[in-house]
């Protein structure tokens, strides 16, 4: 993890070792904080009823860290947090392992929770990280959250709408 920075103490890292939530909690410790919210994302044993043995996470690392920094800066401005730290793990993770950890500290609990929530929701919406699920039957598959009724059409529509929203609506 990056060392705490002077301006706002925002840490965002991709890591290839196991995540220690206590490190993030310590990183956001602040004398002005009355609340620290910690979110952990963990690998679960099934996806849509299909048994999963593990997940490997890939990232466009430079862009992912850049987007994570943008998101936690937005969260800090929006909720006035004391500090925010986020780590996302890359590589193969077994069931139960932590894939992402977010800690946010604030004077009060509501904005601490809200800031952590903002970071995970925006992370899932726009940070270029992908996961490939490994199934009990030995197959593996990239997870596509935009996949709906029709693979191509749904993916295309979702991607275009997402890109338009992110790029400022000049799409079309």
């Amino acid at each position, binding site marked *: 993890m990056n060392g705490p920075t002077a301006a706002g103490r925002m840490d965002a890292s991709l890591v290839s070792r196991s995540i220690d939530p206590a490190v993030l909690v310590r990183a956001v410790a602040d004398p002005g904080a009355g609340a620290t919210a910690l979110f952990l994302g963990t690998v679960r044993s099934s996806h849509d009823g299909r048994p999963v043995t593990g997940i490997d996470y890939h990232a466009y690392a430079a862009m992912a860290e850049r987007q994570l920094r943008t998101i936690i800066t937005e969260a800090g401005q929006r909720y006035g947090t004391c500090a925010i730290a986020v780590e996302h793990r890359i590589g193969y993770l077994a069931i139960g392992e932590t894939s992402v950890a977010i800690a946010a500290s604030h004077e009060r609990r509501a904005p601490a929770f809200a800031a952590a929530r903002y970071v995970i929701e925006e992370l899932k919406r726009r940070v*270029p990280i992908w996961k490939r699920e490994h199934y009990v039957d030995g197959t593996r598959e990239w997870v596509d959250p935009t996949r709906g009724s029709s693979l191509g059409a749904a993916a295309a529509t979702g991607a275009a709408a997402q890109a338009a929203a992110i790029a400022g609506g000049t799409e079309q």
Partner: protein
Amino acid sequence: MAQTTVPPTVTVLLFASYADALGGPRIDVPVTPGSTVGDLVARLRAGNADRLPARPMVAVNQEYASYARVIEPGDEVALIPPVAGG
């Protein structure tokens, strides 16, 4: 050979399902000066239409880009499959 006969190319970074679909982590795409992101996607999809969605997301210099954006020499261009972090 005169330089004008060699079309400039942009290296496009590919990830996850798109890297699998197109057979590697990067692909060189010929572009004419003034080409937009949309032009680049159209060029990439020519011959690969069954392997890429109609309007994949694109990042230029690590930020999401609109299809109207003009690609400049030296830009870092990447195709971004639907993200699934967390």
